[in-house]
């Protein structure tokens, strides 16, 4: 995307201005999206994003700049401004002189799409969304159905003053079906949103007729649901997007962004038992076609599979370059950013609880009164106190070991370390689901996952 000589000039200018390390990140995105409501295209939009971010390290201090004027004059001027901002201009480093000998690496296409962005026309896409809509209309009470399709192709170049030159290409596709049911229970919603690092073959992996029906049925379930109970009780959490609870309760606490600053309740605890022994927690950037997968991270490191917790013992953190400098830990290919407007920080990729050996049915046995949180919405956490929450999209009462009537509007809250120690049993039915995760370096695609599992006690926020 940029000439090698220009990249080399930028990095050398930064080094000769006194930076220990310089990294240039360049990207070009093509995005397409459409939103269809009740059979009509409401909005269809396309976009081209193009920009660069330059990051300089002075020890663990960072200066960052970004621009989408990628002319040679603009980039060199920006580099000089950055060097001046740090106030060490003129400290010429001998190593910074001369050309850079880049070692070039390119993506091998491990997550390449079968049907790329330009392969089929817009009508094809619209027809698939209309199929999903038709499937969502499972009952006359379904008054509104909205479907949205998002697709993107991102080309990335990361070049560093250490001679790294990495090119990656990421293709992602997702569609979301939202059904609104209206009746005596007011207006209630149901939604499903499959997404992968694939092209339009997503529609074959997750057929619109199935996804649509699931969204419609969830809305109908919520329509006949009563308000959720309130109080502390045992909860069985569903698989797939159920994993969002540990994304909040655990995952964010293991990113070096807070760990290195001792701003996480799980800082300095490697080797300690931090969870129930039935918990093994893994963050894997290499899952084929995973929604959060890429061959390289946004610092140009190959992604990897990182075991965070093994049988309850803390084994590792998610480490980016800055976190590695601060903690002395090896980087794990976890440096991610939304786009060129953000400097990378340590982030989750595809994070899941490994399967256990308790049959799913056993999880419910012996629960006198509790909640089955079958499908989850998003959540939030404060790493410094571990306090987290997440919303439940579809839930049922468990009474005397049986799944009974549906309830709506529940939220689960707790403190991460406390909740993970209360995981009593883990089933074997691991599944994953896509989500968007917001943090310091922006909003990123991540996969969450888990098998069904039982938490012996958690606060359920409801009205009844």
């Amino acid at each position: 995307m940029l000439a090698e000589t220009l990249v080399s000039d930028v990095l050398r200018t930064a080094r000769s201005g006194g930076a220990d390390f310089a990294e240039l990140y360049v990207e070009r995105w093509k995005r397409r999206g459409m939103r269809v409501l009740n059979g009509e295209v409401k909005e269809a939009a396309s976009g081209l994003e193009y920009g660069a971010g330059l990051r300089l390290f002075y020890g663990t201090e960072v200066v960052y700049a970004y621009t989408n004027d990628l002319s040679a004059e603009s980039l060199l001027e920006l580099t000089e401004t950055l060097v001046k901002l740090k106030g060490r201009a003129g400290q010429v480093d001998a190593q910074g002189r001369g050309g850079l000998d880049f070692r070039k690496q390119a993506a091998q296409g491990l997550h390449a799409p079968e049907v790329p962005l330009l392969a089929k026309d817009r009508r094809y896409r619209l027809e698939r969304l209309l199929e999903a809509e038709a499937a969502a209309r499972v009952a006359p009470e379904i008054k509104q159905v909205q479907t949205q399709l998002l697709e993107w192709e991102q080309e990335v170049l990361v070049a560093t003053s250490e001679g790294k030159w990495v090119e990656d290409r990421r293709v992602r596709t997702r569609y979301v079906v939202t059904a609104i049911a209206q009746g005596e229970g007011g207006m209630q919603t149901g939604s499903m949103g499959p997404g992968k690092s694939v092209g339009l073959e997503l529609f074959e992996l997750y057929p619109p007729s199935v996804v649509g029906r699931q969204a419609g049925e969830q809305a109908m379930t919520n329509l006949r649901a009563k308000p959720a109970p309130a109080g502390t009780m045992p909860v069985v959490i569903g698989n797939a997007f159920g994993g969002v609870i540990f994304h909040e309760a655990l995952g964010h606490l293991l990113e070096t962004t807070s760990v290195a600053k001792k701003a996480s309740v799980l800082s300095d605890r490697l080797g300690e038992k931090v969870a129930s022994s039935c918990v093994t927690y893994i963050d894997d950037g290499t899952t084929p076609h995973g929604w959060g997968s890429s061959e390289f991270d946004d610092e140009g490191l190959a992604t990897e599979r990182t075991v965070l917790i093994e049988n309850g013992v803390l084994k590792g953190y998610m480490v980016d370059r800055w976190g590695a400098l601060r903690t002395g830990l090896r980087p794990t290919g976890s440096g991610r950013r939304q786009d060129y407007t953000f400097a990378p920080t340590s982030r989750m990729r595809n994070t899941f609880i490994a399967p256990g050996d308790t049959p799913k049915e056993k999880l419910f046995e012996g629960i006198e009164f509790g909640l089955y949180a079958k499908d989850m919405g998003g959540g939030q956490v404060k790493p410094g106190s571990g306090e987290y929450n997440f919303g439940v999209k579809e839930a049922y009462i468990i009474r005397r070991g049986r799944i009974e009537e549906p309830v709506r509007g529940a939220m689960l809250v707790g403190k991460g370390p406390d909740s993970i120690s209360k995981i009593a049993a883990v089933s074997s039915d691991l599944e994953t689901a896509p989500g968007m995760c917001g943090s310091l370096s922006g909003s990123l695609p991540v996969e969450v996952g888990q098998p069904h599992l039982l938490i012996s006690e958690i606060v359920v926020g409801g009205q009844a």
Partner: protein
Amino acid sequence: MNFEEAKDYLLQKARQIGLEAEVLATETREMSLSAFEGRLEEITQATQGGLGVRVVVEGKVGYAYTEEKTPEALDWAMQEAYENALLQAGGEAFIPAGQALGQHDLLGEGLSAPLEKKQAAALAVEATLRQDARVKQVPRTAYREQEVEVVLGSTQGASGGYRTGVSVLMGSAILERGGAPKQSWNVDVSREFHALEPGKTALELIERTARLLGARPLKTGKYRAYFEPKAFAQLLGVISFLFSAKNVLEGKSLLADRVGERVASGLVTIVDDPTLPGGIASRPFDAEGTPSRPLVIIEQGVLKGFAHNSETARKMGVESTGHAQRGYKGVLGVGYSNLFLKPGSGVRLEEGVLVTEMMGLHAGANPISGDFSLQALGLKLEGGEVAYAVENFTVAGNLLTLLQSISAVGGELEWEYWGMALGAPMVEVAELSFAGA
């Protein structure tokens, strides 16, 4: 090409093909300075901009944007917008007739302080926080400023622009007592750098976090709820979904068909005022070039109307209220500027729970059903006094029921900034469900 030239190129192109088109361009300059352990840990300097085009072909609308300003990229955007439009069934879309809107400067000298002073402000927030022995860690403090240029032009005569911006101080701190840490954020936003006070930002943050130390679980039950202004402002952000004519037309608002009816307690008056002098989100005109004016949405409990852009206004047979919203990457929507709950005659704290902060609004509040169940932090009140801090609880209810159960409104407005400015005083709600131990 610069922005002005790129905008003219796109409009020229549209005229050649015979399309109605509107171009919205924004250019943002940003700087942020983060402090950690007495040094500037991260400095960011940036410029970013792009152009978004909305075209209408035979009454159908399509969108595209580009950040690259080469003729090839601009041609691509125009072609994509055109093809996107052809997908629509519609037939009623239009670009509104526009006017010369002039050039406006809402920022003035707001950000004009030397870099050293801004660095000192970021460092001062951190230093003040670290002086307090209860502060265990200060993960992040920062000074941030943003200057935005907006340019609008259309083939239907709209042309104009404005400059705006904000100056922000923020900090996050972890305080600890008895092995149970608490973390909070504080963000102060202003139009003027000189109006920011690092000491105040830091001390407020410490005070807000310290009062939560030693928190106990809250017993599940129904309590009278008092929302601190910033907590209620967050809730107002969710409630604002109901006032959007776009959501009404799409069958997603609980307030559809209820104009003229009493939908909230008589103590509730909600206004959006884009002309508010010094307002963080003030604007001279909206994303379609409709001049700004204040809009009363709920007056003493009665729903007066919705916020409209030209498209929703035509469909509902009213005039646009000047609430069109669109970033260059986005599609036409409805959005607010400075939305606030008008102050009332005051709240007297008695028995109940004082909610100081809420978490999980994006997941725990469903504006379509109106149901909410949110993680809260707060203080238990007994006999008009703070008895103890409470944690690990949720507050739940329905947004409309909540609006109807407001039993007192405080006298002083405070603002939160969430893309729009949200203002609220202290609010008392007769009864809400709380879940805890």
